[in-house]
């Protein structure tokens, strides 16, 4: 059978994780790896089924997703607006750029205690953590996206009498959109990382809580279920954002 290079890549992409899982399963059954630390994939699936039947998985998952949603909104929208303004106006860039550059390298997980102190143990602190994760890649990418727009398009806008808001809407936003989308993808990944961390401390629900709780109970299967669910959602978000990009940016030539 002759496959196109693309189909072959897809097949390999599918085969490699399957092969790894099969090896894992085999080694676990043969007793070559310690099942207390690395339970066989089949028993993880059994735990997944059990947790979803009991409703525990859904309760935790929906708690995490709601926090992710509000966090993405809280971090993404201001980042987008500020990023566009930074890209278009030098003074805004001069003011905000050093602040972003100075705070960006601080590990967000290191801010968690401060966030807990300020926002308490409730929902707010979790949402803020996600927002912090989404904010930085979004603002950095949006600014870069606007700066990357060829100057000629801004000249065209001026020449045809585009006002400030029209320049935002017809030139800066669509012109920066490809990099904004890349920022969203990065932000989604960081949001997932941070929600898991945030939920491990002082939360009573969420996937992160589920993993932490499983560790305390030595329910290693459940722990792996949590990890698998996070990985799955990482994959789902990327796929959904890719589709969104295809739909929002029909003008990008695709190879």
């Amino acid at each position: 059978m002759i496959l196109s290079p693309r189909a072959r890549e897809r097949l390999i992409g599918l085969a490699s994780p399957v092969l790894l899982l099969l090896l894992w399963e085999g080694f676990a059954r043969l007793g070559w790896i310690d099942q207390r630390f690395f339970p066989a994939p089949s028993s993880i699936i059994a735990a997944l089924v059990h947790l979803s039947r009991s409703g525990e998985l859904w309760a935790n998952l929906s708690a995490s997703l709601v926090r992710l949603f509000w966090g993405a909104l809280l971090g993404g929208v201001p980042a987008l607006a500020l990023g566009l303004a930074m890209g278009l106006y030098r003074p805004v860039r001069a003011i905000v750029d050093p602040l972003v550059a100075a705070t960006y390298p601080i590990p967000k997980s290191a801010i968690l205690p401060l966030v807990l102190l300020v926002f308490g143990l409730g929902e707010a602190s979790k949402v803020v953590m996600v927002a912090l994760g989404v904010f930085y890649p979004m603002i950095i990418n949006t600014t870069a996206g606007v700066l990357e727009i060829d100057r000629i398009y801004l000249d065209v806008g001026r020449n045809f009498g585009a006002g400030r808001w029209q320049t935002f809407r017809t030139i800066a936003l669509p012109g920066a959109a490809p990099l904004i989308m890349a920022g969203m993808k990065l932000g989604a990944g960081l949001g997932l990382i941070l929600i898991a961390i945030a939920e491990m401390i002082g939360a009573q629900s969420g996937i992160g809580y589920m993993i932490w709780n499983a560790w305390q109970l030595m329910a290693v299967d459940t722990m792996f279920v949590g990890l698998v669910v996070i990985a799955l959602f990482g994959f789902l978000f990327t796929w959904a954002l890719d589709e969104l990009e295809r739909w929002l940016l029909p003008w990008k030539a695709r190879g």
Partner: protein
Amino acid sequence: MALPDLVPASAKITIAGLTKTFPTRSGPFVALDGISLDIERGSFCTIVGPSGCGKTTLLRILAGLETAGAGRAAIAVDDPTKPLNAMVFQGESIFPWMTVWNNAAYGLRMRGASRAHIQETVGHYLDRTGLLPFADRYPYQLSGGMKQRVAIARAFATDPEVLLMDEPFSALDEQNRTLLQEELLRIWDEDKKTVVFITHSVDEAVTLGDRIVVMTAHPGHIKSVVEVPFARPRGVLELRRDPAYGALVFRIWGDLRDEVDRARRQETESGE
């Protein structure tokens, strides 16, 4: 900015003692040095000059994208409801994120034109440029010649007081360039707008213009102004068969040659 101002009745554009200097690391760079020129209403004025002679700066000042240093450049306003100018830029200037139709409608939309007016005008100019069947395409699906047609349609659609064109065909191959020159002349013949057209091609300047302004190498000033005697409407190919065409091209080349040589020496001296 090119402000409306008092100008003689026949002149649509008046440029008087226009000077423009840019600050650079190695001191001020004089781009334009005392340009004075009247451009008649409804005439097609072409400007040729060696690269770096400031012809684009001149056009950008007329377009209001650059300020005049000293002197003035004014466009006479005949109809205050019309935009003062519309520019066709050098290189790719249509928005990659808009369809052909939305690109051509851009100027009108920015001016808040009515839906019906946009529909009719954009339809007309896309039809005139042969782009109507491609109205829903995005620029990445178009050839270079089609993209410049969109830019021309966008500029004409706003019905400006004057049309400014900055080497709009310089990136095209010769066959496409000839086709677009013909199309431009045909559309221009409809209502004979005042046009300032910059080019580095003497052939193009003679083919399109009523008058040719030859500019010197840096610092840019006017070397000569040549009237083009050919009748309109002109056919681009027929024109080239006319012996008078060859003679005129030859004459302008004579004016231009020293300037091109000088421009080249300046480049080698500055080590570029």
